[in-house]
C-alpha cells in the first residue's frame, strides 16, 4: 500500500517511525513522475516490511522546501526517522531497494 503524506501526518508517519520509509515527491503535471509512480507502487507491493508513501508537491510545498526538493521526482529514504538517502530523477527499483535495505 502506498500512503499519502502531508504536513499534518509527516512527523508521526515518517519522522517518528522506527523502521524504513520511502517517500516519493511528485506532482500530477510532471511527466517523469508518471514513470516513477508504477515503480513506487511495485516497491510497496513487493516489500511489505518497508513503509512507502507519496507527497504531492503542489499541495505540500512546505514539505518539499523543508527537504530541499527542487526537482521532481525526488525519492527520499528515511531510516528511524532520519534522512538516509536522496535520489533525484526517475530511479530504477533495484537502486532504491539497495539503498533502503
Amino acid at each position: 500500500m502506498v500512503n499519502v503524506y502531508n504536513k499534518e501526518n509527516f512527523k508521526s508517519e515518517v519522522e517518528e517511525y522506527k523502521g524504513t520509509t520511502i517517500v516519493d515527491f511528485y506532482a500530477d503535471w510532471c511527466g517523469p513522475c508518471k514513470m516513477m509512480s508504477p515503480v513506487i507502487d511495485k516497491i510497496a507491493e513487493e516489500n511489505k516490511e518497508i513503509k512507502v508513501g507519496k507527497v504531492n508537491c503542489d499541495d505540500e510545498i512546505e514539505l518539499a522546501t523543508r527537504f530541499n526538493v527542487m526537482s521532481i521526482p525526488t525519492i527520499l529514504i528515511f531510516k528511524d526517522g532520519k534522512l538516509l538517502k536522496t535520489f533525484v530523477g526517475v530511479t530504477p527499483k533495484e537502486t532504491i531497494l539497495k539503498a533502503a535495505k
Partner: protein
Amino acid sequence: MEVKMKNLFEYLKEMYDIIIIGAGPAGISASLYAKRANMNVLVIYKGTSNLENATKIENYYGFPDGITGQDLYNSGIMQAKNLGVDFRVSEVTSIEYQQDGFNVKTPENEYNAKSVIISTGNKKLKPNIKGINEFEGKGISYCAICDGFFYRNKKVAVIGSGEFAFSEAKMLSNVVKDITILTNGEQIKSVRNNFKINTKKIKKIVGSEKVEKIVFEDLTEIDIDGIFIALGEAGANDFAKTLGIITENDNIKVNENMETNVPGVFACGNITGGLLQVSKAVYEGSKAGLSAVKYVKEIKK
C-alpha cells in the same frame, strides 16, 4: 469552408504514427522498416551526424573500396525519401506526453505521434563550469518543465545560446520572477531575443546548501536561485529527463527490443552505448522500427 478544410488538412498532416529524431544509420533504418509496414513516418534531424565526420568506412558490409561517411549518410536519407518517409530539417526542442501519444516541438512547428524513436547519437553537452555537478538537483536543473515549479517568483538563469535555451526560457517565463540567458562567452544563435542576455564567461557557481551565486571570469557576480542548463541543441539526455527515461552513464537504457522504460519510446544507435559502429546502429534501428510498428498496431486496436 475552404479555409477550414485546409486547416483540418494541415492538422491531419502533422499527425504521425512514428516520429524519429535523428537521420543517422539508426534513425534511417528505423524509418525504412516502419514505412514498409505502412506506418505514417516523420524523421526530424539537424546538425551533423557522427557518420558524416567519418572520412572513410572500410569495415561495413558491401563496399569493397570503402565508402565515405558523407556518401553513406546521404544515400541513407535518399533511400528513405524514395520510399515516402517525410523529413524535416529542424531542431526538436521538446518531447512531451499528451493524450494518446507524444507532442514533439520544433521552433517553427509541433507534431503529434503515437510513438517516438530517439536516434540522436551520443552528443552530450555539459558545460565545464565549477559547481555544475556539485549542485545538480540543488539549484542546477536540466529540465524547465519538470523543475520550473520550484522557482516560482524566483530569479533564475538559463545557460545556453541556441533555440533550445530560448525554448526553456520561454517555458520558465510563465513561472519565475526574473530570467537571464547566460551564453558563457558564446554568440546568440536564435532569432528570438526577448530575454535579458549576459554573454560573459562564467568562472564558477557557488553556494552552501544550494546554488546562491554565479561568478564570472571578470570576477563580477550575480545572485541566483536556480540555473537551467540548455546548451547547444536539445539532445537525447534532455528528452530523457523530461520523459523520465532511465539512463546509465549518459546512455539511454533499452532492452533487446530497443524499448526504453517509457511505453512508446524507443532508442537506437550510439545513444544506447556499446559499439559505436554503423552495423550496430543499422541493426538497432531496424529492431526499433519494428518494435515501434508493433506498439502502434497494438494501441490502434
